[in-house]
């Protein structure tokens, strides 16, 4: 089950501030709702996890992030993330190219082009909600990215400010919506009564 998503998000900060944030993969990962880097293998390879618990649903994905390219000239990063859920019944991968550029309205823009693939149980029962789910996650990511950029723009030490975690509640809520959409879709395969 593969979907392709192309998105542009306006940012408040300058192109160079945004690029400073984007080229730091660990920072980028922490903008992903519920995600964290658990191990730095080398400068281009990381291990990470996404853990979500919403209502009755528990999902934990563990995986690898491989940076394919960091192109400061074009303010572009290309990375591939692959993971499996902890029960081994589903896998997901994302081939993401993200870049920042001068914005049309705001100061700058974040562009994301992602191919997201889901296989296994989630693809059997929830695959067709992929677009909505991926959209939601990416939107939440952009929000986090933007707010972190806003926070860092006024700071002496952008990296330090940026590393402060976002309020957990906000992240969970963001995911809650997306995952609930997915759960709901899965449920919708069964008779429609609660």
């Amino acid at each position, binding site marked *: *089950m593969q979907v392709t998503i192309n998105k542009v998000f306006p940012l408040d900060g300058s192109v160079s501030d945004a690029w400073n944030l984007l080229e730091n993969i660990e920072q980028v990962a922490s903008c992903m709702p519920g995600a964290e880097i658990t191990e730095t293998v080398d400068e281009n390879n990381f291990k990470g996890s996404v853990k979500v618990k919403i209502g009755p649903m528990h999902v934990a994905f563990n995986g690898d992030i491989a940076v394919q390219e960091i192109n400061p000239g074009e303010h572009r990063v290309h990375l591939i993330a692959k993971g499996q859920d902890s029960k*081994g*019944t*589903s896998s997901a991968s994302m081939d993401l190219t993200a870049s920042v550029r001068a914005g049309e309205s705001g100061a700058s823009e974040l562009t994301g082009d992602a191919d997201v*693939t889901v*296989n*296994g149980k989630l*693809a059997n029962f929830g*695959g067709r909600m992929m677009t909505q789910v991926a959209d939601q996650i990416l939107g939440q990511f952009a929000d986090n990215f933007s707010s972190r950029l806003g926070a860092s723009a006024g700071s002496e030490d952008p990296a330090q400010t940026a590393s402060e975690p976002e309020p957990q509640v906000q992240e969970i809520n963001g995911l809650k919506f997306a995952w609930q959409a997915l759960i709901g879709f899965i449920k919708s395969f069964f*008779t429609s009564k609660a």
Partner: protein
Amino acid sequence: MERQEQLQGIGCSRKRKEDPRFIQGKGLYVDDVKLPGMLCGEVVRSPFAHAKIVSINKEKALALPGVHAVITAEDLKPLGLHWMPTLAGDTQAVLADEKVCFQMQEVAMVIADDRYIAADAAELVEVEYEQLPALVDPHKAMDADAPIIREDLVGKDEAGQGKRTHNNHIFTWDVGDKDATDRAFESAEVTVREDILNPRVHPSPMETCGCVASFDKVNGSLTVHITSQAPHIVRTVVTLLSGIPESKVRIISPDIGGGFGNKVGIYPGYVCAIVSSIVLGRPVKWIESRIENISTTAFARDYHGVGELAADKDGRITALRFHALADHGAFNAHAQPTKWPAGLFSICTGSYDIPVAYARVDGVYTNKAPGGVAYRCSFRVTEAVYLIERMIDVLAQKLDIDKAEIRRRNFIQADQFPYQSALGWEYDSGNYAPALEKVLEACDYEGLRKEQTEKRANGELMGIGLCTFTEIVGAGPSKACDVLGVGMFDSCEIRVHPTGSAIARMGTITQGQGHETTYAQIIATELGLSSDDIQIEEGDTDTAPYGLGTYGSRSTPVGGAATAMAARTIRAKAQKIAAHLLEVSPEDIEWDVDRFHVKGNPDAVKTMKEVAWAAYNNVPEGMEMGLESVNYYDPPNFTYPFGIYLCVVDIDRHTGETSIRRFYALDDCGNRINPMIIEGQIHGGLNEAFAVAMGQLISFDEEGNLQGNTLMDYFIPTFVETPHWETDYTVTPSPHHPLGAKGVAESPHVGGIPCFSNAVVDAFAHKGVTHVDMPHTAFNVWKTIHELGLDS
């Protein structure tokens, strides 16, 4: 006459003898079997369609209290059981060996105290996979650079069914005179061509597959209760795989909750349960869930064909040509016993006198579940009938000839039987033209066409579908069919008891067809004993004579014939005993319904009951006592039932919903044993045809993930969707069958599918539509409507 009626024999719509237990909840199905100390198995399955197995960690599962074992390919290897032969000459992984080749493939089996613990433990088996690109489209599978699905076959130019030309190629099969066919096409006045798809579907009987394996370590004997349409074959396969002598293997098919082809094959779950029982020394039950059933055991069809007809300008067909890619999934587990990889596809010239034909099928591997079963049909007969019955409509439209008329012009005529078809069959009997006229008249075909014309003028969509099909069933002559070298005979053993009741044991196995009733009726008529007093037993290999099972509409053509022959042997002996009792010579005696009497002296009588008693105390000198016989019947030919179906549909041009206004089915299955049961079989077969034509589809996404493998999405019509059925019949006996019977249960499925399709396409014929692929869901039909702009 009265005595005849009392027998409730052939031709009588007697009530079924099996019903009392079913209506009181006393049937015994495999999942009802509960043995002391029994454990439960749960299969751990691959979430991916194509992946390498990096590692399997059983520790957490084994640590769960109540778990007895977790078996994987590694455990089966020392026993040589990690792969097993398929019925199609290929091999199939019992548990995935280093890689998985389809989603939900069997990777491990957990054995635990009960199904609850087994389910928990299956979740705890940790398998690490490295995903590989998956192939779901057979055309793409044949690309030069396609990923290799079966690494185990790399370098082998043969996979059990002849030469293969590509790593994902299984076989090429062809039949007919290619050159003559090509020439006929070159010189034809008119030709038509269509891509004809039979999508992947699943038989989905109400009961899923399962078994209870019980190995007795003390006696070294194995008993398996199993959902099998062919228990004797299972016994032979178990022996070949395990080395346990056949005399110590007992296979029991108890009551079977529907088969429809799903229960012919031998599945990894069975093998794992058997091995587990042997290793653990305790009975092991394995029952698949509905999701597992739809996803893994036995798909049908998946034939991607191109059909062509050549004809003269009057619509007389001069040649037929066909090529298909047959998607067999990851292993060629095509469950069919003929000597040809495409089964009986060569019946594709149908009811028509076609001078030359050529058909070719290439088998292909994909990352989908293995199989290729005959879903309520003989082997690839649905695909064949679908081809010819669709194509003749395409030709009719091209030439603007009425669809009934074009059939009249091409029918094999009654005086041409026995008829030699271009692809090598000898049709035993048929009488198509009068049957067609009977149906057209019953349905007021002319009136319907008139109404259609009026409706079209108003922008309404009404379709009339015809299907005038011929089947080939009753596999089969052993010269044409065998399973693992065992010829396709079938058997019956009859014992008449001293007081005149009897038991018969059969090599076939009923799955709802009513064998306990119909075989008893045959014996009743042949022996003059009431069918009430005749017990039929099937499915226990310890007691029944060897037989090849029930599928391909073979029970009546083969098992029924064996029954008649065994009964006739008994009657011949009985005649001698009667003569002895009446003190005349056997030639001076006549059979009269239920008794013998001396010719010319109707009062000198011995009833069969009296003879039965005498058989145990007063037989002619030199004669063995007892009254029993066993017959192994190898039929001289297949049988060729036919039918004329007519379907009227109305299509909602706004939603694409098709409503079946009328479905009229005339079947000719030769002589009829129990008309009530025949009618029931036809209703059921039509409903399965309706399901296939209008909604069933096993679909995958591009990565091989199954879509819609629960009964929410997989279409099994309910009372509400199912149309009303009208049935009719003619009788054209088979000349070679002892009872003149032909077999009926599959005709409605085989003939019904193209009839529905023909009706749907006919609704759009005036707009130039010649073919639309199944299933004709509202969505798919609407697409046609919308493309044509008919919804505005």
